[in-house]
């Protein structure tokens, strides 16, 4: 598991150059600028330049000091004591201290609808000018991780007291943090301009250098149209662009630009099978379905071989290291004969005039629900269509039914679908387990990300360990049990490892990715010439 960009040779041979303005074309504009509101990974890519976090996650998944010099956890895992840096100031000149951090960590206690509400903070207490004690209501193994991402941006206390949460969300010029860049200008719907914070002297050890950032300015322009981003990079109107579709990589490289690829962490892009209703209530049909998909060749044609295949529901790089069960690799795969046999066994042994399998006069029909918004990322539309049309060979009739984001979960909760697709990026193994637990069943409220409506006791039991045990090894073991169980029962079919694919001009150096695999802070980036 390496966090280094996989296709770009390290540019360490050259000495970093200071100055310059980098123009970066992002895919979408974040809907809100407050990281606590909606945990958007795209927002993190911007906020990580503006805000420092309490701790920093290294590329190996371990946690290093950042705004906190050190921290202690009580044996019951409920009380955290943070020793804070005393040399940090916000962009507005106010100092960082325990009181400000308390203000920030108390937010989920005082505000409604924050993404961080689930972290189970019970109370916080200032125990010294630079010491803060946090008490949780239940053990939460992912608590430190939560403090390591810009989902939990540390705002200036002045901003927090003078502005409403709504204002923070709407206006990034209120994003006053302690990070290496500060917001200079914002045009809603168009661009965000960052300028170097000249006083920055508290970079975490995870960074490649110390002191202020190299770049004078970063202009982030929001350009949803893929072809426009690529055209702009190729015509030198931009230095870097977000989201290069795999098939367009040759186009970008052909124009003399560089393509950076980084595997994500969390879950792969997978298919969740609804085992509650026919035909997937039969394990054989689930396995037959899985084995009837020639994932390798589909990935090759849809993504030109850029995306690699995923073998379990946890991605290889997901922290803590080892959580990914390598032994499951190649343990399953395309086998049409086996699929046919399994279907015969399951009683789907007739074939109708159109070539679909039939049982008791009913066609082997699969309703595949999908979210029409997310299907636009990564050409999942094409992949989905290709999968659906390829399954005809085995006798499955697959119908894809789109929903928009807001109604998708509600539709799933009706328990009428057979199949749904998803992926979750997050740099902690808990995230790769949670979508398969009964607590995430959309019928029970909550976040409703369990699209297979799975209620499996084995998985649920392991999830408790994954969530609360502060011993990484215990969590790793539990996660491995879950991965095996899912494959064994055919609850889900892992498809590919999502990647962040960024295109840059050759003069861009020092591009970094965060632990989830998204673009990280522009702190280490620099422009040659």
């Amino acid at each position: 598991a390496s966090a280094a960009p996989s296709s770009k040779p390290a540019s360490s041979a050259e000495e970093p150059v200071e100055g310059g303005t980098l123009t970066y074309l992002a895919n979408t504009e974040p809907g809100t600028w407050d990281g606590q509101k909606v945990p958007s990974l795209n927002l993190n890519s911007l906020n990580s330049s503006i805000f420092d976090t309490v701790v920093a996650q290294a590329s190996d998944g371990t946690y290093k000091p950042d705004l906190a010099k050190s921290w202690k956890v009580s044996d019951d895992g409920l009380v955290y004591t943070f020793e804070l840096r005393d040399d940090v100031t916000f962009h507005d000149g106010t100092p960082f201290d325990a009181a400000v951090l308390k203000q920030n960590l108390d937010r989920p206690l005082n505000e409604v609808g924050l993404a961080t509400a689930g972290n189970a903070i019970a109370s916080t207490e200032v125990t010294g000018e630079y010491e803060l004690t946090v008490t949780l209501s239940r053990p939460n193994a992912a608590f430190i991780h939560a403090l390591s991402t810009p989902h939990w941006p540390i705002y200036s206390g002045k901003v927090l007291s003078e502005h409403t949460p709504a204002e923070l969300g709407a206006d990034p010029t209120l994003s006053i943090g302690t990070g290496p860049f500060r917001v200079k200008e914002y045009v809603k719907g168009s661009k965000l301009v960052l300028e170097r914070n000249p006083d920055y002297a508290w970079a975490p050890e995870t960074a490649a250098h110390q002191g202020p950032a190299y770049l004078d300015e970063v202009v982030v322009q929001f350009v949803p149209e893929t072809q426009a981003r690529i055209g702009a990079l190729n015509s030198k109107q931009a230095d870097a662009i977000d989201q290069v579709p795999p098939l367009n990589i040759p186009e970008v490289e052909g124009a003399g630009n560089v393509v950076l690829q980084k595997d994500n962490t969390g879950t792969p892009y997978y298919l969740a099978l609804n085992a509650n209703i026919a035909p997937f209530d039969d394990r054989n049909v689930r396995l037959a379905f899985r084995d009837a998909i020639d994932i390798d060749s589909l990935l090759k044609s849809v993504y030109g071989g850029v995306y690699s295949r995923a073998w379990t529901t946890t991605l290889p790089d997901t922290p803590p290291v080892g959580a990914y069960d390598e032994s499951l690799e190649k343990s399953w795969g395309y086998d049409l004969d086996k699929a046919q046999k399994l279907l015969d066994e399951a009683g789907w042994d007739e074939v109708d005039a159109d070539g679909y399998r039939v049982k008791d006069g009913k066609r082997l029909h699969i309703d595949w629900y999908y979210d029409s918004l997310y299907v636009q990322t990564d050409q999942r539309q094409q992949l989905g269509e290709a999968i659906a049309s390829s399954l005809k060979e085995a006798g499955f009739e697959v119908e894809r039914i789109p929903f928009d984001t807001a109604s998708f979960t509600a539709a799933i909760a009706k328990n009428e679908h057979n199949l749904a697709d998803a992926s979750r990026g997050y740099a902690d193994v808990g995230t790769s387990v949670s979508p398969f637990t009964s607590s995430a069943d959309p019928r029970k409220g909550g976040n409703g990300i369990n699209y297979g409506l799975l209620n499996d006791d084995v998985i649920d039991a392991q999830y408790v360990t994954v969530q609360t045990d502060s011993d990484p090894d215990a969590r790793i073991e539990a996660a491995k049990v879950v991965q095996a169980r899912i494959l064994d029962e055919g609850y889900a079919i892992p498809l590919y490892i999502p990647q962040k694919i960024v295109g840059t001009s050759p003069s861009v150096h020092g591009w970094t990715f965060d632990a989830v695999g998204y673009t990280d802070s522009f702190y280490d980036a620099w422009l040659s010439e």
Partner: protein
Amino acid sequence: MTASAIAAPVGTSASRRAGLPGPGVLLAMAVLAALLVVGIAPGLFTGYDPLQASPASALQAPSAVHLFGTDQLGRDVFSRVLHGAGYSLSLGLFATAIGLLGGILLGVAAGYSRGIADRVISRLLDILLAFPEVLLALILITVLGPGMSSVIWAVGIGRIPGAARLVRSQVLQVRRSSYVSSATGLGLPPLTVIARHVVPNSLGPVLVNSVLGVGVCIIFGASLSFLGLGAVPPTPEWGLMLSEARQYLSLAPWISIWPGLFITLTVVSVTVTGRWWQQRAISRRSSL
């Protein structure tokens, strides 16, 4: 979509007394007829299944095997374009029909009833006109769920207020005409007068205008596809094809050129034909 969403209310130049269709109009009619045939029975012209993906042969340039090349999933673009004719044409035709029927009902009701009823209906039309069509369509599609039939309804309902306004103004004009008072003077009961003289004479311009609207609907449908609310993949609807293909513009321009060309061709043909008809209708009425 934009402005063309309102079919141009075209006046006539008295100089052009449209009689027999000229060569351009004939060509347009021939194209339409051909498209109609293709739309009804695309299978006659191509052996490829428009939905059959064959990833191995993705993004192939036009050749003897694949006349229009293949798309990102290796589907035959020629076959998809031909099958798309049916979707796009039925979108244009049915949406127009919905707009027309609704427009006639509301328009005749508003134009013939006076006072309160007219006020209420006219106000309702104002409201519908005030509703930005794209929002109306988006909301309707979200209510009805995605799919071709929702798109048809959404686009069609969006056309009602315009058609109704036109019908109403025609009815107002016709009911004031002397042949209507002359029919009343013969002692005919009002309903007979409406059925025999008012309605038939009010419809002419509206019908003609609707022909032009067919093209407008097709374009609007394509724009909805761009916004991700039109037809549902893998439907080979032209607007959707165009929208999906735009990402491959520089890699494989043929995937987008063909559906784009066919949309333009269809709309141009519909418009040319409709305008000829309009001209003919007007000059038949006012010639001398």
